[in-house]
């Protein structure tokens, strides 16, 4: 194992982990506060990707500055997260917070199926690709390998910004501390006058925006097509379960472990590539089973 190969595997792992973290931290945040496992998270990721790609295609067709495609990645995430997030929380989840977990799972699964069909209706079945943000930043040569700046610089920077920003918001912003209070003890928070319903809405929207942001950031790098949300959903569950549902830093570490594990597997045991996230999850749950039950934002 040469040091150059280790460096290459490290860079690949970090780039992969960045996207996985952004999506899975949204899932873990929603569970930590609302105590709902949101299956529709995968659809929010896919709709975010489709919306960002649509903006990108529109920018190209309108022949306006391609640099505008960067802010549209964030705008697409915000639009999808706020509109769909608030609709799902207000129209559905609010009615089933006190119901059994299995009902919540089924309800969010139904939303996942509906949104999956909606994607087909709106965008069809042919793959979309809008790679302008990937191309504009160009490539960088590291040893024998050429990387895109977008994947090894921009994505990790955004992931770190999400981690730091989320932690800062929850620890120092008043509305963030209110979220922590509700996560810690819903009834006590309600007793001291906190509007729990609004906190739930805010938290769900933040989680939904993060899912959509993951999709919009992924859109320049991949083909966007029906069903793309499923894989990311499963991966996010693996991260959230390994990290401990509701643990933000844990999600970052687990995403990094999975990213590095996957790239190491591609180099030295490619047949294990697909298994790595689940091997890591199994190992973590065997060694530290209490993480799965614990919740901490």
């Amino acid at each position, binding site marked *: 194992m040469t040091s150059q190969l280790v460096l290459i595997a490290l860079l690949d792992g970090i780039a992969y982990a960045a996207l996985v973290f952004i999506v899975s931290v949204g899932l873990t945040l929603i569970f930590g506060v609302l105590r709902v496992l949101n299956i529709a998270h995968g659809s929010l990721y896919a709709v975010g990707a489709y919306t960002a790609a649509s903006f990108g295609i529109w920018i190209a067709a309108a022949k306006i500055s391609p640099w505008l495609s960067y802010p549209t990645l964030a705008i697409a995430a915000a639009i999808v997260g706020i509109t769909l997030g608030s609709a799902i929380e207000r129209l559905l989840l609010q009615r089933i917070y006190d119901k059994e977990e299995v009902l919540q799972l089924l309800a969010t699964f139904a939303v996942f199926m509906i949104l999956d069909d909606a994607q087909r209706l709106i965008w069809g079945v042919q793959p979309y690709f809008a790679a302008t943000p990937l191309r504009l930043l160009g490539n960088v040569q590291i040893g024998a390998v050429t990387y895109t700046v977008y994947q090894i610089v921009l994505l990790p920077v955004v992931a770190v910004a999400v981690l730091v920003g989320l932690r800062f918001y929850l620890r120092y912003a008043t509305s963030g501390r209110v979220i922590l209070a509700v996560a810690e003890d819903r009834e006590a928070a309600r007793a001291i006058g906190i509007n729990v319903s609004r906190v739930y809405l805010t938290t769900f929207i933040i989680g939904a925006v993060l899912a959509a942001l993951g999709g919009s950031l992924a859109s320049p790098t991949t083909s966007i097509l029906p069903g793309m949300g499923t894989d990311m959903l499963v991966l996010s569950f693996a991260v959230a379960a390994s990290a401990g549902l509701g643990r933000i830093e844990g999600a970052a570490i687990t995403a990094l472990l999975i990213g590095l594990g996957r790239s190491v597997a*591609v180099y030295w045991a490619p047949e294990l590539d697909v298994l790595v996230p689940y091997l890591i999850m199994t190992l973590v749950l065997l060694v530290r089973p209490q993480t799965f039950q614990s919740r901490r934002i």
Partner: protein
Amino acid sequence: MKSLLIAASVCVGMASVGLAADKPNELKIGITTFMSGPASVFGVPGKASAELIIEEWNRKGGIGGVPVKLFFVDEGAGTQAMLAEYRRLVQEEKVDVMLASISSGNCQVVAPLAEDLKVLDYMWDCSTQRIFEEGKYRYVYRPQSYGTPEMLSTVLYVLRKRPDLKTIAVVNQDYAWGRDSWQLFSTALKVLKPDVTVVAELFPKFGAADYSTEISRLQALHPDVVLSTAWGGDLDTLVRQANQRGLMQQSLFVLPLVESSLERLGNDLPEGVIAGARGDNYFLNPEYKDKPDFKAFVDAFRKKTNAYPIYPVFHMAQSLFALRNAYEKAMVANGGQWPSREQVADATKGITTEAYSRPITIREDGQGLADQLLGTTKRDPKYNFAVMDDIAVYPAEKISTPVGKMSVEWLKTLEPSILNMQVPTYKHPM
């Protein structure tokens, strides 16, 4: 004498009334295809192809004077759901013929079911060689291409273009086709060019969204050739990511299924990539592109879908045309009467069909022999995507496993003289 003639006329008249009554009101054809999920990039154009052809036939009276009614089943719902719907169509809707399916995995489970249900099944797009090598069927046929000639012709074309090939890497989807096609390709390559070293065998997950790590590894390994039999969104993603990072300029890419992605990939597919078409299915097929019926079909398909036809579109045509041929042959053999399923099944053996490609003959084992077209990508200002140049068309009978033999074992017996096979070649007219 006069009364005898009248009696005879009445009898003939009654017989013809009886014959007309024997014909069904409609011929029901069930088609399984991907209408959802990643494989819908094949399934939806395949469905459009069937609708286009059947609409045209029905305007002219259908098959043997019987209008055709189509039923579609979504393979994207999963194998079990597809099988349940397949059974329902045959047993409750009384469908006469099934065209199933795209997925090789689905074809493997459909074949024995078709035998059980005694329903004629034309496998319209799947490619696994295992169907007719591991089983014998009366009701199951495949009037289009399959894996072994596709992979062997690719090996021959690669060695023609790069006789000095030393190292190769593979990036195939991790499922039956990805694994089987690599086994066929690598077996033939080892026999015909034993000194080639396989430097990496990568099988990323089916539907993978990111190939960054695989691309990094391939850049570090620097193989002469990178093979991928991926298709659909997976292939598009791999090509775009590899091209963006310069891998396609570093190694020769060999993509035997990329004909179906040419238009979608646009400028992302560079020149110099070896491209295949699962048969000689190509909208600019040099032997067919100027024929009026071919041009009419391409134009009609573009008008209906706003896209050029890709190989599943041609595969669907090949199955439907073969079915019409089989019905017409069976009717002739049946004295002009509407044939039974068994008569159509038996008539399918040996028929030769020409449906926007070179004629395809169905062998006694049920497998169609489709010639194989390969080319190298080139830019033409008339199209905003890559087209094929330096096209070679390989005759199916020389590159297909003989009846009764297993492909992998047969490939091991190839003689190096096959490399000298003379085949027609064509330049793309600029």
